[in-house]
């Protein structure tokens, strides 16, 4: 077990290092003079060459690729994300407050997704190929094809403009989270329904189930103890992918609903060419993502003893 954990941690470290190098290289090679962009963003007017040179020296752009990379990475290891190139404020507090908006949204979206997809999939698989089942599959196919930004706009149109039941823009009251969470949740529900449904159907084909049945084990026990664990494995894999979907969805949804979360933070940072902020978001997103996948890998091994130690 220790070997597996160490192997997974090593893999995580390699991936994170790769991410850091790739991000930094991209920003380094980006067209245009980054110092000019920073100076323009900071002073909001035409600036003299002395100021540009000053900014360049201050940001370490004049030192060459590797010194600049080291100057960025080593503070990063101790949690210092540097200062915003535009406002000059430390990146970390702003980033944390953005995360504080995104995490509840993502969790609410995930909860809505599970609340819809679990019952729907269980009801649908009662009678595979039946009317309800085909309805669930059709809804799920439609749901995966609808882009989050369009769904969000439609929900705003329906609930905020036509019916005026729910608030749409901003984050003033707790109610403001409902529409964005619903937008995210419906998308999650669509893909989860498909996976849970096929997971249950697949688990039903296990050859030992008829044996339990003939021995007189009641259906609910078979379902709980023998079908559910098997169906859970693909679902857990997909939950990891759902996280990616949630982060992606959050980017779009936050922009549509003007929520000051990680997505808006990213889009604003990219638009302002505020590279320290962009780097921070990318690293945090990668860290989040890799950690979740690491946890999922570990959970796998706990719930599915068949996954051998050799797979590490």
């Amino acid at each position, binding site marked *: 077990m220790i070997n597996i954990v160490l192997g997974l941690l090593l*893999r995580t470290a390699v*991936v994170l290092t790769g991410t850091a190098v790739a991000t930094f290289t991209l920003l380094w090679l*980006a067209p245009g003079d980054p110092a000019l962009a920073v100076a323009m963003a900071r002073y909001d007017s035409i600036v003299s060459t002395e100021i540009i040179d000053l900014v360049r020296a201050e940001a370490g752009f004049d030192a060459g690729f590797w010194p600049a990379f080291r100057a960025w990475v080593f503070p990063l290891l101790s949690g210092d994300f540097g200062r915003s190139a535009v406002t000059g404020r430390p990146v970390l507090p702003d980033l944390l407050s953005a995360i504080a908006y995104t995490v509840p949204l993502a969790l609410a979206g995930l909860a809505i997704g599970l609340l819809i997809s679990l019952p729907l999939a269980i009801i649908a698989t009662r009678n595979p190929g039946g009317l309800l089942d085909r309805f669930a599959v059709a809804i799920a196919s439609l749901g995966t*094809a609808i882009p989050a930004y369009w769904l969000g*706009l439609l929900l705003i149109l329906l609930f905020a403009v036509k019916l005026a039941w729910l608030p749409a823009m901003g984050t003033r009251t707790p109610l403001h989270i409902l529409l964005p969470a619903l937008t995210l949740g419906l998308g999650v529900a669509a893909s989860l329904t498909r996976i849970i449904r096929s997971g249950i159907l697949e688990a039903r084909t296990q050859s030992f189930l008829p044996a339990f049945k003939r021995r007189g084990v009641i259906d609910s026990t078979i379902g709980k103890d023998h079908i559910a664990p098997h169906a859970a494995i693909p679902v857990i894999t997909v939950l990891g992918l759902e996280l990616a979907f949630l982060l992606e969805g959050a*980017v779009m949804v936050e922009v549509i609903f003007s929520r000051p979360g990680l997505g808006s933070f990213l889009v604003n940072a990219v638009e302002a060419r505020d590279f320290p902020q962009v780097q921070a978001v990318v690293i945090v997103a990668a860290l989040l993502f890799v950690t979740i996948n690491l946890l999922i890998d570990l959970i796998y091994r706990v719930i599915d003893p068949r996954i051998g130690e050799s797979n590490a």
Partner: protein
Amino acid sequence: MRSVITLTILFIVLAVVGPLLAPHDPTAINIPHRLSAPGDEWLLGTDALGRDILSRLLYGARWSLGLAFLISVIGLCIGTLFGLIAALGGKTADWLVMRTTDTFLAFPELVAAVVIAGVLGAGTGSLIFALCVTGWMRYCRVARGVGLTLKTRGYVIQAKLAGMSALSIARWHYLPALLPSLAVVWTGMFARAILGISALGFLGFGVQPPMPEWGTMLLEARLHMRSTPLQMIWPGLAVVMCVLAINLAGDALRDALAKENNAV
């Protein structure tokens, strides 16, 4: 199945000949008739600059579907190449390729695409680059996975013993065996590329105005959502129908292949 194929072909035909069917110039500005409701002259109405929405949708199909096709094919080539290198190249190559793939998979595609497209400067070139960079990993994983199972097949071992080079084994034994699974991945990635293009367009990092791309159209329509909600419905509906048709075609393809495998 047949209806799905018909629908998919219909979209492809529309993307190719769409501009011929367009009743108006998609960039012709007509301020007196801005934001007009659907009617005889403008079948789906006009946008904020008085441009005909139907014509813009038809021209936009070329951007959305054409670019998505290009991006998914580039991804297919890159991913297959890397996957084959991983499967055939020995342990070190395999480790390197798979860790690179893991790194690229370590962030959500859209986040990476926004960063790449935004940093390189908004435009069609950066859009294509961004979506290609974030869209080849699935092909690579599938190509490697199937490739590894081929390694122990009799005919591959025979070919090796007969002195065939790794390159020709890859060309004549691996590629044909990989094609069905890659085709299924490709349909999925094609649909994702359509969504990606319109998402970046919607965020303002994609195809730039006045080019009529569906996501960009949505971005413009959003401003007038309250007064003319219909204007926002059309481009979204176009995206949904395309993606749905392609996804269903992909599902049908996968089922057909599974059936064939079972029969053999």
